[in-house]
């Protein structure tokens, strides 16, 4: 049965019918309708269910505050749960009712909401396109401001200002107001929604008002509607939501709304206090109570209820604005001053609201039938129960009942719940305001907030110039920071373990090449560069000869190891320092911080050159032959090119730099060339080296090789609580060279305790058993928890060179425990291991120097 009135409806276009489907049935609405108004026009009043109790519910409001009429939109866009009052009717719309909760299973399978981000800088942002908002926008435009006006609804009644510097958005909700005029706006553009990041010199909140209901028995039945909402359906959409109405209002606005209904041909059968509404699936009969207490029943299909008008102050409160209870208006209005850039105007400020007799719920009848929060199915009785349980604060009541926490965020129930709490506690109606408000002011899909930052665009991916070759070769990659690094290169039938054993064996017996381009590289230049590096590293860099390389350890002020790398002295006043792959940005930041904040007089400039250089690390006893075969004019002979020096020259026909430096314990040459030559040099090394037994190897083999040699990886064998002394690296700390960062801390009492955790090696009793990294260690396996833990495993591998498993660990007083047995109690059984020196391979370094 059509409820469309023969005339009227300022928002609809009667010449443009719109077909849509709701809950499996085809309907027709009009352009300008919302889904809610179109349903009402088709006589669909009920059809919704409450989420917890499954009670029949109908359309209560005409705006985004709607608690009952929630729908899922299936076409032409996807919205998992949204009020029907906020869904613009479009041709082909398909929707179905949703009982207050989204179907997250569907959320997982659906393509998901799509979003994009836009930015806007304005002098004046006006939130709300009602009369006060339009006036504020007009006067701002008049004085030449750039203006942004955002209106939550789908259209604006009235004429907003126009011009090049004025932007007006409808269907746009301010989700949150933050410091210094930063406002995030959710703009429901379809199918790709928009999140506007607005920075405004002035923010004007013209956020209007929401009407509140009055809880009575049966007040949640379909056919109970807020009075002003019913009037809006008549005026905007030309729809009469009922034929015979009862009016239950405590202000003039409610009675004015009744007049609108009357003019539309709806009979008003009674006015006054409603004791209860009756009906199975919708209102059929209403029991009224007269002043003298007598009761009278009337037949009606519509109850217009108005318990008063609440200024919409969600955004005001979320930035710390206060509230004051206005006795005459029976509502909370803004109190005190907010940030200097923020003002509240119009109805939101309490202007023009009707004097109202406070009435928070109807006395008489079963309180468990008087619903306060329709989305949480919470009643007057539920509030009373929490107070009887001893709760007093509205914040506690909210958390006990969940009132105000549903999708509608308590727009119709928040003030009501607070006032009911106040009344039940025997306090004034303004004793406690509604519970706190936080952004977002309306639900917004994560996909919309994420915008394009998903999938490949979630985080930048960094690849080296040789990446395509690794992919071609079937490398398995691992993420190191943002870098993709080959972890290993599986041969036919190989898994991680067998591939790594093969790669390690090749490096120990012939040669291997690793793409080391991701190493952090920083050029440190300037006359004071030597003095500066002396302060940043634990050892002396100022006496490093030009052409030489020195390993360096970097500490925090607290004396803990934060990074390591090597320094190459390129010239008297120029160094290239390397960092760990993950530590490059952090090291450069540290350099800059010290230079700018403590030593601005030092003439030093630091430049990141990580991506300018590609690096091929050739390791192994045949490394010299490999580099020679790849072609170079650098004299590679042992005496001419000693360990820890570098030479400039040509490599595979291109200019570059060769550094004789090793992280494997084998003879090794690092080939540094301009990034754009990286792939060429890598390919030349591979071609020349493969006949000599050279294999490409990845980070996993690199980890095993360095651990066999007892070289630590900062961040794996250290965790920010480890000093050089703990690592057995006193040899690199030079306290006599002058002050350096972290030096004074190394003398602190806690850092010289003999029982600190120290780096040791571990050899499991069963040479085939591998300790899990992170395993805790005990001296005695009592079989009963708790056991006193004395350390933990930091690195653990199967070694081709040793023919067995081994590990590195941090163990209390570990250097005094060499030869002792420790235990790792694990769920699958205890592993015993002998404590050893952490250097398992070539402890004298013969292979490095004499290779």
């Amino acid at each position, binding site marked *: 049965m059509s409820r469309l009135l023969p005339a009227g409806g300022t928002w609809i276009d009667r010449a443009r019918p719109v077909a849509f489907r709701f809950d499996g049935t085809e309907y027709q609405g009009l352009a300008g309708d919302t889904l809610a108004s179109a349903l009402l026009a088709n006589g669909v009043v009920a059809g919704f269910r409450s989420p917890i109790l499954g009670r029949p519910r109908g359309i209560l409001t005409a705006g985004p505050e709607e608690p009952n009429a929630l729908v899922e939109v299936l076409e032409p866009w996807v919205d998992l749960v949204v009020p029907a009052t906020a869904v613009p009717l479009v041709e082909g719309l398909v929707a179905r009712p949703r009982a207050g909760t989204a179907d997250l299973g569907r959320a997982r399978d659906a393509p998901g909401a799509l979003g994009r981000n836009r930015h806007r800088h304005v002098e004046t942002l006006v939130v709300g396109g009602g009369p006060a908002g339009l006036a504020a926008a007009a006067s701002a435009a008049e004085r030449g401001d750039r203006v942004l006006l955002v209106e939550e609804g789908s259209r604006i009644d009235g004429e907003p200002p126009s011009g090049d510097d004025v932007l007006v958005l409808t269907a746009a909700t301010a989700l949150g107001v933050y410091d*210094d005029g*930063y406002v995030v706006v959710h703009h429901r553009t379809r199918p790709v929604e928009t999140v506007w990041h607005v920075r405004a010199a002035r923010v004007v909140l013209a956020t209007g008002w929401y009407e509140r209901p009055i809880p009575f028995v049966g007040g949640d039945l379909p056919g109970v509607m807020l009075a002003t909402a019913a009037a809006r359906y008549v005026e905007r959409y030309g729809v009469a939501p009922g034929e015979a109405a009862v009016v239950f209002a405590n202000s003039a606005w409610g009675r004015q709304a009744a007049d609108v209904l009357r003019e539309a041909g709806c009979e008003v059968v009674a006015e006054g206090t409603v004791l209860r509404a009756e009906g199975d699936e919708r209102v059929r009969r209403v029991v009224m109570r007269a002043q003298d207490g007598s009761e009278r029943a009337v037949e009606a299909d519509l109850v217009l209820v108005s318990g008063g008008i609440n200024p919409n102050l969600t955004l005001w409160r979320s930035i710390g604005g206060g509230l004051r209870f206005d006795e005459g208006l029976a509502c909370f209005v803004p109190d005190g001053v907010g*940030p200097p850039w923020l003002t509240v105007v119009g109805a939101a400020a309490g202007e023009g609201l009707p004097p109202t007799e406070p009435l928070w719920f109807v006395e008489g009848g079963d309180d468990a039938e008087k619903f306060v929060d329709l989305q949480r199915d919470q009643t007057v009785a539920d509030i009373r129960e929490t107070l009887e349980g001893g709760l007093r604060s509205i914040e506690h009541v909210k958390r006990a009942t969940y009132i105000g926490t549903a999708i509608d965020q308590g727009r119709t129930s928040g003030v009501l719940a607070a006032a009911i709490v106040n009344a039940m506690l025997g306090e004034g109606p303004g004793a406690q305001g509604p519970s706190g408000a936080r952004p977002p002011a309306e639900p917004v899909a994560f996909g919309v907030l994420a915008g394009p930052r998903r999938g490949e665009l979630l985080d930048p991916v960094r690849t080296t110039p040789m990446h395509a070759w690794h992919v071609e070769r079937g490398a398995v990659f691992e993420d190191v920071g943002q870098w993709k690094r080959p972890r290993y290169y599986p041969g036919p039938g190989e898994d991680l373990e067998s591939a790594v054993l093969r790669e390690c064996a090749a490096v120990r017996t012939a040669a291997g090449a690793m793409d080391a381009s991701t190493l952090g590289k920083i050029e440190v230049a300037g006359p004071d560069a030597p003095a500066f590096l002396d302060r940043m590293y634990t050892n002396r860099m100022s006496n490093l000869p030009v052409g030489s390389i020195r390993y360096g350890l970097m500490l925090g002020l607290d004396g803990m190891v934060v990074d390591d790398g090597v320094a190459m002295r390129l010239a008297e006043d120029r160094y290239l320092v390397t960092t760990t792959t993950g530590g490059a940005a952090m090291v450069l930041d540290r350099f800059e*911080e010290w230079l700018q904040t403590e030593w601005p007089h030092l003439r030093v400039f630091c430049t990141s050159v990580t991506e300018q250089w590609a690096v091929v690390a050739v390791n192994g006893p045949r490394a010299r032959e490999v580099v020679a075969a790849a072609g170079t004019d650098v004299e590679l002979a042992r005496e001419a090119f000693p360990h820890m020096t570098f030479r400039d020259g040509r490599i595979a026909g291109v200019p570059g730099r060769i550094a004789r430096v090793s992280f494997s314990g084998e003879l090794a040459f690092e080939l540094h060339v301009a990034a754009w030559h990286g792939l060429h040099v890598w390919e030349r090394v591979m071609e020349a080296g493969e006949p000599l037994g050279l294999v490409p190897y990845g980070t996993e083999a690199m980890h095993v090789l360095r651990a066999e040699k007892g070289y630590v990886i900062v961040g794996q064998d250290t965790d920010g609580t480890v000093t050089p002394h703990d690592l057995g690296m006193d040899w690199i700390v030079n306290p006599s060279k002058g002050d350096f960062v972290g*030096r*004074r801390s190394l003398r602190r009492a806690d850092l010289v305790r003999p029982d600190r955790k120290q780096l040791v090696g571990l050899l499991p009793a069963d040479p085939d058993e591998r300790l899990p990294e992170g395993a805790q260690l005990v001296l005695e396996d009592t079989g009963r928890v708790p056991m006193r833990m004395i350390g933990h495993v930091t690195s653990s591998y199967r070694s081709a060179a040793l023919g067995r498993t081994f590990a590195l660990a941090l163990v209390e007083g570990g250097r005094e425990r060499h030869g002792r047995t420790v235990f790792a109690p694990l769920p699958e059984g205890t592993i015993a291991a002998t404590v050893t020196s952490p250097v398992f391979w070539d402890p004298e370094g013969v292979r490095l120097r004499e290779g």
Partner: protein
Amino acid sequence: MLLIRCPWCGPRDEVEFRYGGQAAISYPSDPDALSDEQWADYLFMRDNPKGEFRERWVHVHGCRRWFQAVRSTVTHEIRATFPIGEEPPS
């Protein structure tokens, strides 16, 4: 999100900056002269006032320069930003 006035780049969004803790804590001229307690005081102890706080920021996604700010820890209002080594304007 705060709007922070970089002394070199002007007002920019907070996400372009990184916080650097309390300002005007100088590295001791002779750390060896300090007792463990004095050194720990320099290393770990910081003020936590309710009200104006002089602190360091770095425009890490901009000019990468460090500077100082005087910010209210109550209202987040930043009264002044100024280069390292300078005193706050009165």
